[in-house]
């Protein structure tokens, strides 16, 4: 290795990318890095499918009478958007691509603990995804991604059963990935890589994996019960045949609230890596940030009732869930303040990764604080099921999780491909996304407080100005999301070779070549210091 020039082009050097060029070498690979690339491509595909449904929705809402789509078409479009975004983009996005690619590299391992299981996860994902997409497009479902009963079991037309089956299938992919990560982090850490030296990215994925393994089976159970009522008229949820309609909401949110943390925790891990590398600083309060991930995962299981403040559940339950929902914000706040403190006295490089991380922090802070508003009972009663809620969760999931995902793409792209992309275009797209996002979703907070319910195909004319603003923002956002696709793909051939560590970052993944060799490291690394061990200016770091 030592006699080779540092900036060899990726094609000349042996790496996981040129370890085989046949289709077979990709589709039967057990290399975690190749599986990550398979995920990256398929997830990007599903993202743009789901995003085009959002584009239809925003176009349709330009006018109060909804001229573009029919009622049925609109209801199907937002269901497709929600189902595809939640289960086929957001939940697998960062864990399946970057978790897969990076966890073994970060802990100094050759691969994940169960490489073949890892490939099986991808196959389950892709089968579930194509199956669901076919059902949504050909059959059509209008229940929304929440499938509330008894509408979904006894009243809705369309391919509800098929879609529910597809989601149940893809759940197993989540469970297997979570299992793989837990075992990998426990068993395959390199010598010296103690729990206290683990990058926060790995802690976040550990917490995420716990939720994946514990919550996803509940979703499977819930959806199977739904299918049983729809198919066999078993009285589970519909009171006219002896069921309880609220039981479904309890079961569904017992999974789906933790699922929100499945979407955001990995992004929080990414942001920690981006902030420390962008500022060349050790993370402020390592243990607080690490434990905050676990605390979010744990308390996140106890807040599902805040989706049901107006459902008719007991007032006392409402008060308890309100309190716990405020409590679950504490570890998130700790993370935000720690990231900010990490920037203090750093050496900030305003490159795309740090810009995306700062966009994440800003949008997540705002989304999280508006979540506190929703946790307050009297305010939630008014804004529940309005555009206020839509704005809130898009700030978390799009402003937060998608910015985190794009930050990860811009940070580890040189590692994955061996090529640098245009930093200028990266900065432009980070700025455009931040601007377009706020223009799209901030007006929706106002719409919600003014009383515009969600899932409305037609709306009173007084809401039109804000809807037009929101749609204008969405068109900017559409351009901003397509832009990286262009310059990143362009960089694959034309980017300059990145070298092993273009950002000057710490972390084991930067110690090996870019793109890494199939076996990751030439010799098993030995870890001797803490995570983010950047050289500190004199007399620093012992406070």
């Amino acid at each position, binding site marked *: 290795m030592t006699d080779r020039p540092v900036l060899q082009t990726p094609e000349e050097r042996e790496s996981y990318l040129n370890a085989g060029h046949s289709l077979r070498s990709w589709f039967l690979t057990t290399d975690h890095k190749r599986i990550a690339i398979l995920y990256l491509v398929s997830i990007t595909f599903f993202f743009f499918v789901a995003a085009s449904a959002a584009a239809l929705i925003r176009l349709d809402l330009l006018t109060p009478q909804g001229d573009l789509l029919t*009622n049925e078409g609109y209801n199907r479009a937002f269901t497709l958007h929600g189902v595809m975004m939640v289960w086929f983009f957001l939940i697998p996005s960062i864990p399946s691509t970057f978790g897969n690619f990076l966890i073994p590299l970060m802990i100094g391992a050759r691969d994940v603990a169960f490489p073949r299981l890892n490939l099986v996860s991808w196959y389950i994902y892709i089968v579930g995804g194509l199956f669901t997409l076919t059902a949504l497009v050909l059959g059509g479902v209008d229940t*929304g991604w929440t499938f*509330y009963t*008894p*509408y979904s079991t006894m*009243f809705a037309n369309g391919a509800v059963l098929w879609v529910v089956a597809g989601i149940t299938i893809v759940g197993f992919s989540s469970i297997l990935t979570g299992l793989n990560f837990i075992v990998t982090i426990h068993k395959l850490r390199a010598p010296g890589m103690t729990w206290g030296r683990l990058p926060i990215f790995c802690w976040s994925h550990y917490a995420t994996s716990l939720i994946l393994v514990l919550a996803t089976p509940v979703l499977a159970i819930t959806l199977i019960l739904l299918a049983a009522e729809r198919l066999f008229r078993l009285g589970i949820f519909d*009171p*006219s045949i002896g069921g309880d*309609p609220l039981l479904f909401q309890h079961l569904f949110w017992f999974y789906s609230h933790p699922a929100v943390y499945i979407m955001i925790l990995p992004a929080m891990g990414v942001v920690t890596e981006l902030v420390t590398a962008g*500022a060349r*600083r050790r993370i*402020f*309060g390592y*243990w607080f940030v690490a434990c905050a991930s676990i605390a979010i995962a744990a308390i996140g299981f106890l807040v599902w009732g805040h989706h049901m403040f*107006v459902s*008719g559940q007991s*007032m006392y339950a*409402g*008060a308890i869930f309100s309190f716990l929902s*405020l409590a679950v*914000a*504490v570890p998130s706040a700790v993370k*935000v*303040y720690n990231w*900010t403190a990490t*920037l*203090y*006295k*750093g*050496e*900030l490089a305003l490159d795309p990764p740090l810009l995306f991380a*700062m966009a994440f*922090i800003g949008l997540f*802070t*705002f989304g999280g*604080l508006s979540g*506190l*508003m929703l946790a*307050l*009972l*009297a*305010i939630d*009663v008014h804004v529940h*099921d309005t555009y206020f809620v839509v704005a809130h969760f898009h700030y978390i999931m799009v402003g937060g999780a998608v910015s985190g995902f794009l930050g990860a793409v811009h940070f580890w792209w040189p590692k994955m491909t061996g090529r640098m992309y245009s930093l200028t275009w990266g900065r432009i797209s980070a700025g455009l996304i931040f601007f377009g996002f706020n223009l799209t979703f901030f007006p929706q907070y*106002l719409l919600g*407080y*003014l*009383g515009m*319910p*969600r899932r409305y195909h*037609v709306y*009173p*004319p*007084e809401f039109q*100005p804000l809807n037009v603003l929101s749609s204008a923002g969405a068109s900017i956002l559409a351009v901003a999301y397509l832009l990286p696709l262009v310059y990143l793909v362009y960089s694959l051939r034309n980017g300059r070779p990145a070298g092993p560590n273009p950002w000057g970052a710490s972390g084991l993944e930067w110690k090996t070549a870019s793109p890494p060799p199939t076996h990751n490291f030439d010799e098993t690394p030995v870890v001797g210091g803490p995570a983010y061990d950047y050289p500190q*200016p*004199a007399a*620093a*770091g012992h*406070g």
Partner: protein
Amino acid sequence: MNDFFRMWPAQASAHAVRVDQLFIAFSALIVALAAPVFILMAVFAIRYRRGVDADRSRAPVRGVWIETGWAIIPFLLTLAFFVYSSWLYFQTGRPPPGALTIDVVAKQWMWKFEHPGGQREIDELHVPSGEAVKLVMTSQDVIHSLFLPALRLKQDVLPGRYTTLWFNADKPGTYALRCTQFCGFDHAVMGGRFIVMRPADYAHWLQQAGTDGSLAQQGFELFRRLGCSGCHGPDSTHRAPKLEGLYGRPVPLDGGRVTVADDQYLRDSILYPARDVAAGYAPIMPTFAGQVSESDLIRLVAYLKSIGDQAEEARR
């Protein structure tokens, strides 16, 4: 008021004013909690930009007190809001006794309102101002949700169950009424007008609206027509529980449990008589599930309520 571009929703009750105050105060707290993050990020990005000469010595990497501070202080501040907002919420959950009761039946895709005097209206709700009004709501099919933005109130309407919503609207006017729980094809147009009137105007409106007798009277007709009086009537020879004075009283059940004869219990006993059998009676009553609509059930319950109240009224 300019209807084209409204910046603030109309306020039609004292509760709406309080919710708005809470919302504004909490918005201020949000700004206060987020401002340090935004300002410091910008300041650090400028002052500590790579290549810029700045004092970077003694950069801290941990601090237990500052961590504890920024974990606990914002939480305590939000807890103050938690107490007030929960108090407001509990107020909206406890209707005062003697509130004017209006029954609501929701179905795909319309709202039906039944006033106690028997007046009916579809997709419009007229109420008197300055008076406590209680809505007792149920759905004939899927879950709906009644949203009255001018009151900052909303309550899901469930099939097979009564939920209630009460308010005291003090500003006469015409406001929006919407469905906020996705209920299918025409969900977006399942709404109408919520009209708050001065009490005299409301009384006048009731007169104009016309009626086939009060809900209780209509319920009595049904009670006879469906054959209920055959067993439950005063001179029946069958052994069935007497229903006079029953409403609101505890009912001992077969198996030792005790329940209260409220709207829900009476409704369920008509539809599913075998579920909770009154102690000491044989379960011989046939089910009426599928034969009586939610509107008829409301009438039957109104009748039972009226003969339940008679004993109480006699005492007054």
